[in-house]
């Protein structure tokens, strides 16, 4: 049963990701990416990372993608224009090279040394994650707040009228 769910959501994620590339209009790409993010959150639930699944929907699909869609609609873009002509043949080279990269990645993953399987299953509850975040990872957590502050100021400066 759980395998069926895995294959369903894996196929949904891969299909939506491919659809992101295929769509001509970038708005449809963004909407397709939201489908992919939701499928990923279902996969997180299958891995018993409950809290991350919730965060994935709220922060990723909810906040970040709304930002993308907002900007796309703000700019009121036309459809994708094709790139310069000298780059057209590169498209036919790109797909075999991408498949080659996939082949290399799968071979590497197959031969990598596996960690020993731990039987004790953890579930990523907010309590466990929060405890780890505020003890072992306190310094990275505080550094994160600085990063967000800098990103915020940078975004305001870049979006100013007289750049």
């Amino acid at each position, binding site marked *: 049963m759980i*395998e069926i769910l*895995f294959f369903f959501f894996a196929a949904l*994620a*891969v299909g939506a*990701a*491919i659809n*992101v*590339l295929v769509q001509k209009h*970038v708005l449809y*790409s*963004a909407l397709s*990416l939201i489908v992919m993010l939701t499928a*990923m959150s279902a*996969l*997180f639930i299958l*891995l018993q*990372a409950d809290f*991350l699944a919730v*965060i994935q929907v709220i*922060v*990723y699909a909810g906040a*970040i993608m709304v*930002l*993308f869609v907002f*900007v796309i609609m703000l*700019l009121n*873009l036309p459809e*994708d224009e094709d*790139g*310069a002509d000298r780059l057209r043949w590169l*498209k036919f080279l*790109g*797909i075999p090279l*991408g*498949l080659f990269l*996939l082949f290399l*990645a*799968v071979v590497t*993953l*197959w031969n990598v040394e596996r*960690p020993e399987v*731990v039987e*004790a*299953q*953890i579930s*990523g509850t907010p309590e*466990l*994650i929060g405890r*780890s*975040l505020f003890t*072992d*990872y306190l310094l990275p957590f505080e550094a994160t707040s600085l*990063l967000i502050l*800098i990103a*915020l100021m*940078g975004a*305001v400066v*870049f*979006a100013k009228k007289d*750049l």
Partner: protein
Amino acid sequence: MIPLNWYLILGAVLFVIGVLGFFLKRNIIALLLSVEIMLNAVNLTFVAFSSQRGQISGQVFVFFVLVVAAAEAAVGLALVIAMYRNRETLNVDRSNLLKW
């Protein structure tokens, strides 16, 4: 119980799709979306290993990846707006002042 390999291969497939999108698409917002796909593939790998090893650290790292993704989206989209205001196009091939 689903084997770890399946998750790793799904992560690899999604990452390669993101790489392909980054190199094949010419719209700068589509490039940012491809980066999001790649970040999500990495997140899936993190969570799969965390679940396999019974350690929570992998899931905490996904948080940091998420924060970096949010910061990247904010700054990147501000740059997109500035670029569109100056050049009236989002095609990365047309902003070639720094190319020789």
